[in-house]
């Protein structure tokens, strides 16, 4: 994998399907501003995919920024750290954005944002040290998935991983924090890339950006060429802006031409994917030892008074963040945690920001367009839009018939719920919901066996 004269790589393969969403990257020129410490933060013990943490502090404890407050000995998990300094006022279940109630530690601020004294850069000499450090940092996939990064990087050596793909596609509309990361912290990204290369022995690195972000491409390429890259193994790839370009399997196909089989991981085809912001964080952590206690997110939408990119302590209440952005300028019709294609619409804004939240969007009446539902006209737009080659209209029929066998045959488990089918349906069918129902029917049928 070598770059051409200009150093820009072009996609190796083009995935099928996808939809042309409007980008609405309104906040792309808003530099990330740091939000002052809120009065209190709620830190759920599960902000990642995997086992929840056990709280290691109790009510009344004084904690400082970066202090460990929750951990577990399970492998697929990641520790939680205090994001502000102050006093632990409760260790009890709290509600999070998706409506679930999970154990959490609530800290009241002392207003000082005092750093924890025990913080020092980790000593890293080999692969094991490196992975341990990534785990200790509390890092998860910051692009939305929330998968523990140390698990992702700890692939078995026999997988022969030869390509690291840095995902800077940011294909969801509105969100611009990954773009800001590319512009503002490109050195961190490149430093991290070389660290991962060094400790994991990955040969090629592809930094994948959609073509609607030319400034990010220029910036990343400048750095890629400057940084000691003697064998020209780090290259920027420009991908067509087509949702869901940033989805794991779609990205692996575009960058390498390899198809991840159903139920498998990118490592099974020799690839590791990292979100660009997660990547940049690794080098900062190795330099300073400061764990993941804050994150950037885009606050935008027609109901937000002052759209911004903000850096907030993890666990900050969404109310406080909207307040920092000038509050609502119009009555909010819908508030979404995440992007408009895959985000969760909120019942309450009194929930904390988690490590994997990359946006808060609030829309006034009218701008969150929902079509009335009509009969399917079998136009096939859903199957043309599906990046996984499924036929959502048929799957909807099988769900209505509760036919687990046909659903299994239709490979519904491959669906990643990207929303392209619902987006494109002229009859306004909630196809993604049928896909989720379909997966439940298949799981149920499998568990009965």
């Amino acid at each position: 994998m070598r770059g051409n004269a200009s150093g820009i790589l072009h996609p190796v393969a083009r995935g099928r399907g996808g939809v042309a969403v409007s980008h609405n990257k309104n906040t792309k020129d808003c530099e990330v501003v740091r939000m002052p410490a809120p009065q209190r933060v709620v830190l759920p013990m599960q902000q990642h995919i995997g086992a929840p943490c056990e709280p290691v502090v109790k009510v009344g404890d004084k904690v400082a920024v970066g202090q460990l407050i929750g951990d577990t000995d399970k492998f697929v998990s990641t520790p939680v750290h205090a994001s502000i300094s102050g006093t632990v006022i409760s260790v009890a279940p709290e509600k999070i954005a998706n409506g679930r109630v999970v154990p959490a530690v609530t800290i009241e601020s002392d207003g000082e944002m005092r750093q924890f004294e025990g913080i020092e850069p980790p000593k890293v000499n080999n692969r094991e040290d490196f992975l341990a450090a990534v785990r200790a940092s509390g890092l998860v996939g910051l692009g939305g998935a929330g998968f523990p990064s140390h698990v992702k990087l700890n692939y078995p050596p026999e997988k022969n991983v030869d390509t690291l793909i840095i995902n800077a596609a940011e294909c969801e509309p509105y969100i611009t924090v990954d773009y800001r990361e590319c512009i503002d912290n490109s050195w961190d990204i490149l430093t991290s890339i070389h660290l991962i290369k060094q400790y994991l022995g990955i040969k090629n690195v592809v930094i994948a950006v959609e073509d609607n972000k030319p400034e990010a491409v220029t910036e990343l390429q400048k750095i890629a060429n400057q940084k000691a890259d003697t064998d020209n193994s780090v290259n920027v790839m420009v991908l067509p802006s087509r949702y869901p370009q940033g989805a794991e399997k779609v990205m692996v196909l575009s960058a390498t031409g390899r198809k991840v089989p159903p139920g498998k991981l990118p490592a099974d085809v020799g690839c590791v994917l990292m979100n660009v912001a997660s990547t940049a964080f690794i080098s900062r952590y190795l330099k300073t030892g400061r764990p993941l206690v804050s994150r950037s997110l885009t606050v935008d939408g027609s109901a937000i008074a002052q759209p911004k990119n903000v850096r907030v302590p993890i666990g900050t209440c969404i109310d406080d963040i909207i307040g920092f952005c000038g509050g609502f300028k119009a009555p909010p019709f819908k508030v979404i945690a995440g992007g408009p294609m895959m985000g969760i619409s909120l019942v309450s804004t009194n929930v904390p920001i988690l490590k994997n939240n990359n946006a808060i969007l609030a829309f006034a009446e009218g701008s969150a367009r929902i079509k009335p539902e009509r009969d399917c006209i079998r136009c096939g737009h859903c199957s043309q839009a599906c990046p996984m080659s499924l036929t959502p209209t048929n799957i909807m029929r099988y769900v209505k018939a509760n036919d687990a066998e046909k659903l299994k045959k239709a490979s519904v488990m491959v669906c990643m719920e990207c929303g392209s089918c619902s987006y494109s349906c002229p009859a306004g069918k909630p196809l993604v919901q049928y896909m989720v129902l379909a997966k439940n029917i298949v799981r149920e049928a499998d568990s009965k066996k």
Partner: protein
Amino acid sequence: MSDTVLNKPTVSASPHIRSSETSTGIMLDVIIALIPAFIAAICLFGPKSAAITAISIICCVLFEFISRKIMKRSNTLSDLSAIVTGILLAFNLPVSIPLWMIPIGAFFAIVVAKQFFGGIGQNFVNPALIGRIVLMVSFPGAMSSWTNALAWHRDDIDTVSSATPLATLSELFKSRTIDSIDASSLPALQSMFFGHRAGCLGEVCAIALILGGIYLIARRVISPAIPAVFIGTVAVFMFIASKGNIYFTLYELLSGGLLLGAIFMATDYATCPIRLKGKIIYAVGCGIITAAIRLFGSLPEGVSFSIIIMNILVPHIERLTAPRAFGEVKEKKSGSKEAKQA
């Protein structure tokens, strides 16, 4: 911050944005695409074409409204599909048709072919074609009495009956005198292209139909696969059958209802395969059956029947061409390989 629960939140599943395309918009595009052919019909066959089209639309809309009411189903008139069916049915009728026959065709199109099977998207055969075929077998005389285009301008309105070019072509082929095509009574090719010939209301003006087709393809309402493959297959067969006579082939393509059928009827969403591979198989089938009926059948025209026959086969085509999901490998092949190795 005081606000804990949003005032009247709308909570719904993702995605929270949708494309602006609607079923009604798609049907409207089809109606727009049919306008050139409608104008051509009025110019070529006179104001009675407008009356036939209007009656057909009104009948289709009424039958749709009444049948949904009786079956206690929601009112679906606003999706405009009944209007599309009405126009297409009218376009498949000769201008000399007695007006009282139109409701019969509309009844079979809307009530029997469409609503009995669940309404829009559920019909397994093209409703307008069922209407046409019912009329054709019930009233073969009225359905095959042709008026020359532009005859209405002269005084001899409705009196000049003539053979359609297709009938002439069929005779030429059957009597093995294709080479005498120039000397036959066929209109010039340009006349065929602009619709100056005998035929159904909407099928005669090739240029108007092609314009409509280009509009539908440009608006991405239909994929070019079905019309291109359908017409292409007929062309190949006619070229071979006439031993390479290019005139005969061109006449065949411009005659009868091939363009109307290939662009507007075979592409009906509910009755054609969803995926490209299926569409190609379906269109090849339409082409072969059309050519076979035209060359060897006792009827001069086979487009309607070919589309209806392929409509019925669509579920099987879909099953045979079901795509593999992303990253899935052919199970059979790897299985047989393993079996061989074992």
